[in-house]
Structures are given as C-alpha cells and as structure tokens.
C-alpha cells in the first residue's frame, strides 16, 4: 500500500451535454503531501473534485485511492477514505456543532438499526467513543467551546473549520478542501494554513483548491494548474510560479484581476518565503 500514491486520478474527463468540462486531467498525490489546484473561474476545479468524490461519474478515466479504484458513489468514496469540504459551506445548519462532526463519524460507526433501537451496552460504548473522537477533532480545529451551538449560528471562519472537522471525522487518508480560505481575513487565513499543516502532520494527504495563489504557493508541496478543463502545468510551487503559461492563462481576466495575479506571481515568492 505504501508504495501506491495516496490518490491518483488518471485522465479524468467529464462531459456535460456538449460541454467538455474536464479533459484528461491527471493528478497524483503521495502520502502526506499537500497539493494545490488552481486555475481561473470555470476551469473545472470543483467539477474535478466532484468527479473524485463520486458526486459525478466521470465520462472517462479512473480514480484510485491507495492503489484501489474508487467506486462511483459518494458514500462509498467517503467510506474508502476520501473526504471533502465544499466551496460554498454546506453544513447541516440546524444541527449542533458536535452533531455535525458526529455525522462525519457515521461511516466509522458500526451500530445497525437494531442496536440503535435498543441502545444496548455495545451501542453506548460506540456512541461514547464517537463523541470522544468528535470532541478531539473539535479541539483539533479549535471549536470545542461551541460544541452545543447550532452550526448556522457560527461565524463564517468557524463554519469553515467545522466543515474540516466534519470531514476529518470520517478518518480520511486524503482530504479535499474546496477554497478553505475564501472570504477569510489574513489572520484567519494564516490559522487555516497552520491547520492544514497540522492535518498533513497527522499523515493525511491534502488537495486544496484555492484562488489565493499566494496561499497555495506557500502551502503546497506541488501545484496543479487547470485552465478550461485542461491540465496546464503541474510541478513544485517554484516551477509553476515561473511558468509563463500560468501568467498567460490568467490574462483572459479583467485588467485589475490580472494585475493582482501578475503581482502575486512575481512578488509572491519573497513574501511567501517569509511567511513560511
């Protein structure tokens, strides 16, 4: 197992009607690695995540987790050890923080209907263990003081962290994060970065989609650039940053944004290095 990459996507394509959203995108992720996925809006990043997690069935290509092909169903994928968060936070808004994490524990719990009905000793043990683990994870992401709040009442940044805790509760070997810092201020972003490092340190491989290229370049071991459903560049942050095609890819954007991107790409290395 250890020899196989943690996650491997082979030439994944996705076609909606006549629209080719993804075209032969491949990705490889070693154990304990953080890989960034960047690209302009509509490049197909989230579609790619959906294909990995079984929410979409790719038109062609395959996805392997630890060398085993993943089934095409989101529930099975999660059971196999691939967890994700969502670009537009999708918590269970009227459940408490703790319950949200317990939902993540679902796949690792064993109680069947009968056991749930009777609440026997075995059930109680399992339930206690699940709560313990959930509290550990809330502690890990720094939310233990709000475990009884309804998740809808959490501030934005906390909701993002709760989503990560919920995903971690499924005991994944690979974690997919869809724009984990979107809408965060610099302090929160920094905290998120540290959190992702700590997740990595527990042996979980992480794939991150992010618009904030600075964030990506200072976080990831390798970076993949998607443009219009095609894999443009793949390499270390340094390689990607230096690639002229990446700058070009962002040129289809409004002037201010291009300006910002160009600045980030050219100056980002120095700042990023200091940040690390």
């Amino acid at each position, binding site marked *: 197992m250890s020899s196989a990459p943690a996650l491997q996507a082979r030439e994944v394509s996705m076609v909606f009607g006549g629209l080719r959203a993804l075209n032969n995108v491949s990705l490889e992720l070693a154990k304990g690695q953080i890989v960034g996925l960047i690209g302009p809006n509509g490049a197909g990043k*989230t579609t790619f*995540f*959906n294909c990995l997690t079984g*929410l*979409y069935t790719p038109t062609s290509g395959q996805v392997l987790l630890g060398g085993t092909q993943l089934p095409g169903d989101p529930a099975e994928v999660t059971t196999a050890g691939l967890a994700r968060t*969502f*670009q537009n936070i999708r918590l269970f808004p009227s459940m408490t923080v703790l319950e949200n994490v317990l939902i993540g524990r679902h796949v690792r719990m064993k109680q069947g209907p009968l056991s749930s009905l009777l609440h026997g000793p075995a059930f109680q043990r399992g339930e206690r263990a699940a709560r313990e683990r959930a509290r550990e994870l809330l502690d890990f992401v720094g939310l233990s003081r709000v475990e009884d709040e309804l998740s809808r009442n959490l501030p934005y940044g906390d909701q993002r962290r709760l989503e990560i805790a919920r995903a971690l509760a499924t005991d994944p070997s690979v974690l997919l994060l869809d724009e984990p810092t979107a809408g965060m201020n610099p302090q929160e972003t920094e905290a998120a970065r540290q959190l992702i490092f700590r997740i990595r340190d527990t042996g979980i491989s992480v794939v991150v989609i992010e618009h904030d290229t600075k964030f990506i370049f200072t976080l990831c071991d390798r970076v993949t650039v998607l443009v219009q459903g095609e894999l443009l560049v793949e390499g270390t942050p340094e390689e990607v940053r230096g690639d002229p095609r990446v700058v070009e890819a962002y040129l289809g954007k409004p002037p201010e944004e291009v300006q910002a991107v160009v600045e980030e790409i050219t100056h980002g290395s120095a700042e990023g290095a200091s940040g690390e």
Partner: protein
Amino acid sequence: MFATLMQQIANGIVFGALIALVALGYTMVYGIVQLINFAHGEVFMVGAFGGLATYTWVLPADVKQIWYVALPLMVLGGVVVSVLISLAMERIAYRPLRNAPRLAPLITALGVSVFLQEAVRLFYPNATSAQPFPATFITTPLVIGPVTVPASGILLVAVSIVLAILLQAYVNRSRMGRAMRATAQDPDTARLMGINPDRVIVVTFAIGAVLAGVGGVLYGVYINNIDNQIGFQNGVFAFTAAVLGGIGSIRGAVIGSFVIGLVKNLADVLLPGGTAYDYVWIFVLLIVVLVFAPQGLFGEAERVRA
C-alpha cells in the same frame, strides 16, 4: 369492441381536456414558486359554483335561455370568483410563507383546500349535497360514426386546446411571460434584472385561476351537476397529470392530462379490474413514470450542483 375503444378514446380526450385546464394552473404555479398548490382543485370547484351563482342570481330569466349569451357570462362569473379566491389565497396564506421551508406552504395548501371545500358546503345555499348545473349549451349529442360525444364535451376540448395554445404563446412571447420564465429559472437573478417577483407570482396565480374557473363552469355544463368535492378528486388527477408531464412544463401538463384521460377510460375496458380499478392504474402509471423518469415526461433533467 372497436366501437367501444373509439368511444373510450373520445371519452378520454374529453376528460383529459377537462383535467388539462386544472393541470395548467398546477404546473404554472409550481414552475414559479415550487409549490404544490393542493388548493388549486378547489379554485376549480369555486369557479363552478361561481358560474352557477351567476346563472341563479345574476342572469335575467330571458337571458338564461340563450346559451351563447348565458354561457360566456357564467364563465365570466366563474372566472371572477376563481381569480378572487386564488389571489386571496396567495396573499393571505402563501405569501407570508415565501421563504419558509417547503413543507410549510404545502401543508398550508392542504389546509386551504379543506377550508374551501367546507366553506362552500356550509355557506353556499343547499350545497350540502350535489347541485344541478344548468345545461346552457347545445344538448343534442354529436354522433360521429361509432362515437357519441356530448356537444359540451367538444366545447371543452376546443376551449382547453385553444387556452393551452394561448398560454404557451403568452409565456413565450409577452413581456410578462418572459418575466415568468426568468423567475422560474432563477428568482434572484430575475429580481436583479428588475422583475418584481410578487407581480409575477400574482399574475401566475391569476392565470391558473382563470383556466380553472373556465374549467369549472365547462365542467358543470358537461356533467350537469356540481358539489363541493369535485375540486379534490379532479385536482388530484390534474396534479398527477402535471407531474406525469413534468411539472413546470405547459406542454407536459396538457399531454399528461390527455394521457390520464386515456388511461382511465381505456383501463375501464382493457386492464384487469376494469372500472373498479381504473384510477388505480393512473396512479400505477404515475409511480412507474416517476421511478423511471423522475422528472416526468417533459420535465427538465435533474441538475446536481455541489
């Protein structure tokens, strides 16, 4: 047997035309506000009573004899009552729940349905049991080869098809129609484009009520009696037709209605159980269609957004 089949097809088409007038209202309202307006069947019912009331209390005795004057006036009366009830229902019961979860307006709709049925029974004179409805139309049936159809049935089919076509044109061509389609697809964007969703919803309810009102009066002329229960049963059929055709689609609702009319009447002669089980077959068909084509025959394909 052939004659019976032809006759049943004719019966099915007439029944389908009737259902279509109600189904269009279901489908329009659902398309705009994603609400199963269970009370829409009752709008149809009050339309029929509105037509009867017009005949009983408004029309002068000599006008009652002239069907081409009396019938349009009764239709007008029925439509006015339907529209008023429907708009009141929207304003009082549904609008405050616009942002509530879906279950809330659905249950409200059930409540409104029961309320209207009972209100008519209790407060319309003698409506505790079936009321005769005047046959203000040509009463001699038409005989076409093996098929006999009441003239009122032909009228029903004609009116139903014409109204469906007009509605389709209105939704496709007019300014308001475009606003409706925009609201149906994405209410938020529609609002940003300067469309007033309240107005669109009110117009939608009104259009549904007009069709139901016309349907109610023509139903009375065709069947010759009405009671406070006609809305529920025909409403369930109409809703089933709308779902069958793919709710939200005008074409689907009309075709779904004709399918239901035909299934009901052909089941009488062709399927096991005969007349005792005819509408069981409608529901069986509905379940089968929904299981294999969850969006109905003409509904939009399911979109999953993550």
